[in-house]
């Protein structure tokens, strides 16, 4: 049995792809993409994350919820070493990606970020580039020259991001000419084009209207067959709709982690229940 919370003594049965898998943490029977051990992060003197330990299962959507300033985004950024870009950050603990320590000295952060893609809160297509260039820029700047390969990957990525039909005749137009929701899907296509194993999403819908949000959520649902997805969201309904697992963070600590259905219907912690029912946060 997978002990997903690592804190709660109750074993949790993992349901994936319609079958029930029973596994123990020590054995590797349930594929885990990330294993996070005692992760703590400081910005200068201020501690943003306090010894978080959790596992993130493969080919599933894990959402991270919690009130503002609880360390959700910081936690997400530790999974692809983006938090290092902030000056005066310090971290302790381990983050294993498929068993390999992301922070060991021989690991190049650029390689980590190629394997763990990221989509940001505000869509940010490069303003100097066309729609097509935006998608393949990651490959191009990582040294891919083969035009045929680039074209194939361009179409494949845009199709996966459910944007191909809308933009296939306008690939030369600026990426910023698209609507907000299309821009966000363009950013997803751009992240998928480098073929990562994981996609991190930091409140990807918070700047979008409900229709655009619904499209992105549908997309997340389809992407999880091929990718492991970790999404930070402020919107609890969204967490409920899209995710298989939910982690609740509060004041830099992981309060509870488990299958979304359990967190939302029968949380073990009082704090989780209070937050989910809207009593604070």
């Amino acid at each position, binding site marked *: 049995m997978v002990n997903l919370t690592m804190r709660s003594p109750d074993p949790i049965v993992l349901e994936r792809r319609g079958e029930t898998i029973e596994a123990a943490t020590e054995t590797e029977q349930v594929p885990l993409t990330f294993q996070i051990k005692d992760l703590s992060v400081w910005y200068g003197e201020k501690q943003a994350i306090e010894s978080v330990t959790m596992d993130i299962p493969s080919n599933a959507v894990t959402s991270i919820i919690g009130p503002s300033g609880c360390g959700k985004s910081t936690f997400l950024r530790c999974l692809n070493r*983006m938090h290092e870009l902030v000056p005066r950050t310090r971290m302790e603990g381990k983050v294993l990606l498929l068993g390999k320590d992301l922070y060991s000295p021989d690991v190049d952060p*650029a390689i980590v970020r190629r394997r763990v*893609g990221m989509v*940001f809160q505000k869509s940010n297509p490069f303003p100097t580039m066309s729609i097509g260039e935006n998608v393949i820029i990651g490959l191009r700047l990582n040294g891919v020259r083969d035009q045929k390969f680039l074209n194939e990957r361009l179409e494949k990525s845009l199709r996966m991001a459910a944007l191909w039909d809308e933009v296939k005749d306008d690939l030369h137009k600026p990426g910023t000419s698209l609507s907000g929701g299309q821009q966000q899907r363009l950013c997803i296509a751009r992240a998928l084009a*480098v073929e990562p194993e994981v996609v991190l999403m930091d409140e990807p819908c918070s700047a979008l209207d409900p229709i655009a949000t619904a499209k992105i959520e549908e997309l997340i649902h389809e992407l999880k067959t091929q990718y492991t997805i970790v999404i930070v969201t402020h919107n609890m309904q969204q967490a409920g709709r899209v995710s298989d697992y939910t982690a609740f963070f509060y004041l830099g600590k992981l309060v509870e982690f488990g299958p979304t259905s359990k967190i939302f219907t029968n949380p073990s912690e009082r704090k989780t229940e209070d937050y989910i029912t809207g009593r604070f946060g």
Partner: protein
Amino acid sequence: MHTIRANKHIWRKVKNVLVSATTFLSAILVIAPLALVFFHLLINGAGSVNWAFFTQLPKPVGVVGGGMANAIVGSLELLALGSVVGVPIGVLGGVYLAEYGSARANSILRFIADVLNGVPSITWGVVVYGLVVLRFKGFSAYAGGLALGLIMIPLILRTTEEVILLVPNGYREAALALGIARWKTIVHVVMKTASKGIITGILLALARIGGETAPLLFTAFGNRFWNHNLGEPIAALPLQVFTYAISPYDDWHRQAWAGALVLVVGIFCINVLVRILTRERKPAVV
């Protein structure tokens, strides 16, 4: 009671008129010199700006006619040489300030650049005279270009830094999150996004040094003939204007006016180009 209030009211109105009149006058005084200079140059110089001015060499003393072709080309060569020194160092230094340096080192660098921007331009001429002209025993286009380039460096450095800092951080993060190396992110995403601003800074620096005379006095020196070797003295438009203006000959005075007019129009054109570049819509801010 009533009269006092009325008086107060009138006094307030008078003050209001006085203040707005003073500010209006000041505004006029800002524009007036440009209009006067341009008008004066047109009256005195337009008559001598002709085909010969752009195509012929200066005639010997006493012979009427001739032109400043060598000085115009010489100025362009000096601007090019100055850019070779000033553009790469200024742009890369600006990138360093905006993207890499530590806060403390940056504030020192920024302070030095601001001081350098205030150094009188003749100082640069003297410095290059001491460093280059004396050592290589001769005035040269290289020395003139170096003096102009040194003036460009702090100008371009500061404008480049500022426009690069304007690039929203979201683009840097997006590129880095694709596993793109830091330097590639800076060159292909950040600098590309800021390219218009960087070019604007370069053009403004060129407009500034295009009219510089003092730093060329001890370096490029001036030349009445075509320069076929950048290791030799070279003519420059501002230098030629200076030489002709202090001469005792009427024909040279006319040519000096023409030279000044061409110079002002050239710099005016650069500024118009800058306006066109900066007028275009800025990229959507992330």
